[in-house]
């Protein structure tokens, strides 16, 4: 079982043995739960006797305490990795995981409410909502039902008062958001703002470190390379890549399709703000890219400035 654990000033999903290790009131982890399904560095195939073999199987895991935005983030990854042709590594790990959601209170970085990702209707097995005297549990899958069924003794009937408390919590939560993204016509607005001076302003501030990609629950570009373990064995490994890296758009002959920091900075905003009618935006408003940007660039502020620049 993996759950949020406090390490220094940050939280991260770690292996836990007992409830006391879990940070129930955490805001966000640095790496989102995608790290369990698309590993930062991941062995795909192993070369033995000149033939590729599928790398080892997966261990079943329970992910405890996943916030709603991250559940939405996983569903966006599902769209990509489970779409034909299915990514076998991702699929196996998804099938072997149990996702237990947990309610949260927003901090100054969160803007999931603006994107409608502040509440999860699916994508989890169980979802725990904090009440003054326990947890309200929503069941989101067959697996979730089975868990509830087998552990009947842990559950009590829902009372009127529980419902009232639940509503109160949700209301308080909805009113606690400090950041709002104006998503009205966002994708069209951005399309028009291709030459906005705002991109040029931020190009100079951005360090091009790619942190924002690493921590984003929906970023999933990867690079592949083969490594020799010894004279007879090699592995094919994939690892996170970032569209802020110069090599991301480089092809033969040294031609680069996104040669400047400006191209790359803008590309990330276009990719995150792409609207897929069946899945929504490619951003879930988790606030990680703001919190972990060494240049203190704020996602919503950039988009707002671009919009203002148009008017």
């Amino acid at each position: 079982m993996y759950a949020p654990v406090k390490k220094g000033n940050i939280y991260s999903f770690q292996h836990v043995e007992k409830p006391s290790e879990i940070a129930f009131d955490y805001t966000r982890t640095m790496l989102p739960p995608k790290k369990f399904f698309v590993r930062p560095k991941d062995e795909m195939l192993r070369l033995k006797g000149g033939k590729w073999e599928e790398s080892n199987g997966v261990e079943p895991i329970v992910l405890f305490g996943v916030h709603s935005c991250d559940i939405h983030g996983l569903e966006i990854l599902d769209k990509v990795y489970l779409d034909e042709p299915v990514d076998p590594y991702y699929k196996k790990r998804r099938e072997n995981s149990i996702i237990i959601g947990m309610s949260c209170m927003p901090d100054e970085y969160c803007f999931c409410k603006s994107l409608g990702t502040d509440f999860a209707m699916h994508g989890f097995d169980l979802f725990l909502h904090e009440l003054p005297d326990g947890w309200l549990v929503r069941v989101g899958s067959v697996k979730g039902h089975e868990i509830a069924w087998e552990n009947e003794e842990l559950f009590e009937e829902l009372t009127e008062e529980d419902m009232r408390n639940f509503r109160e919590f949700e209301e308080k939560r909805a009113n606690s958001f400090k950041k709002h993204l104006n998503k009205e016509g966002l994708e069209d607005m951005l399309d028009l703002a291709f030459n906005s001076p705002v991109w040029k302003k931020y190009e100079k501030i951005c360090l091009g470190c790619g942190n924002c990609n690493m921590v984003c629950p929906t970023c999933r570009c990867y690079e592949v390379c083969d490594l020799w373990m010894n004279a007879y064995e090699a592995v094919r490994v994939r690892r996170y890549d970032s569209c802020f890296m110069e090599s991301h758009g480089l092809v033969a002959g040294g031609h680069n399709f996104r040669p400047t920091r400006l191209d790359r900075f803008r590309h990330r905003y276009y990719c995150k703000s792409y609207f897929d009618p069946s899945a929504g935006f490619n951003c879930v408003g988790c606030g990680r890219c703001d919190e972990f940007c060494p240049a203190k660039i704020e996602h919503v502020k950039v988009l707002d400035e671009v919009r203002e620049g148009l008017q």
Partner: protein
Amino acid sequence: MTFQTHDARILEVKELTSREKLFTLRFVDPELNRSFKYKPGQFVIVDIRGFGEFPISLCSTPTREGYFQLCVRRVGRMTKYMHKLKEGDIVGIRGPYGNGFPMEKMEGSTLVLVAGGLGMAPLRSVLWYALDTGKYEKIYLFYGTKAYEDILFRDEVIHLLKHGEDMNCHVKLAYEVETPSCIYLEKGYSPRVCKGVVTDLFRGETFDVENTYALICGPPVMYKYVIKELLDRKLSPGRIYMTLERRMRCGVGKCGHCIVGTSTSIKYVCKDGPVFTYWDALSTRGLI
């Protein structure tokens, strides 16, 4: 499995130029060899085990079964390794990937193939397919090359310069570097062979715009100029097809490298392309 490659044996290696080699391959598994179907414009991912993978267009035609061909330019680590391989060696192959050219839709029409440099590789597949099936009204090949020594499939191109007219195939060649061989070729085939760039070959040409498709492949800078020539001749954007290159790692829409476009339209060159129309380019920023 999605990323498993299949053994293919190199039947023949032919040196085309000092940088490009033509590899003729066949799958080791006879069943796979029979079931391997592809379209002109599609590509495969070549796997040199323990060294890495890279995408290469199929330059042979599906009308000739039992083998397939790849024309590989030596530009870096992987392609250098590929160039060291010999007849009998094994590489891994996965694919075919991408959408390919809509050959069936274009039946009965005139095809204008515009190739620049290595762009000749995927268009050779179209050219052979069109000649083999005989289902196209007329075929033009406009080929821009640096020098005589760089002409890919030189024997085939010169053969078509000589005899193409009999097959309704009109070949024109533009070269940039003047060498005795080019001058000799120009003497023999002027004005179809001339010094200049590929767009110079459009001079004096008109097309029946209702019944013509243009298919372009070349270096990124070429597209803008060629498209202008075609639009000047009133060819509609939906009849202009081009095949594009991007950095590719997965070939199947997962790794994110080949994503182009903006917030309103995102496309994967590997699975939505690599063949796009000029309409796509107009509605998807960054495509060309």
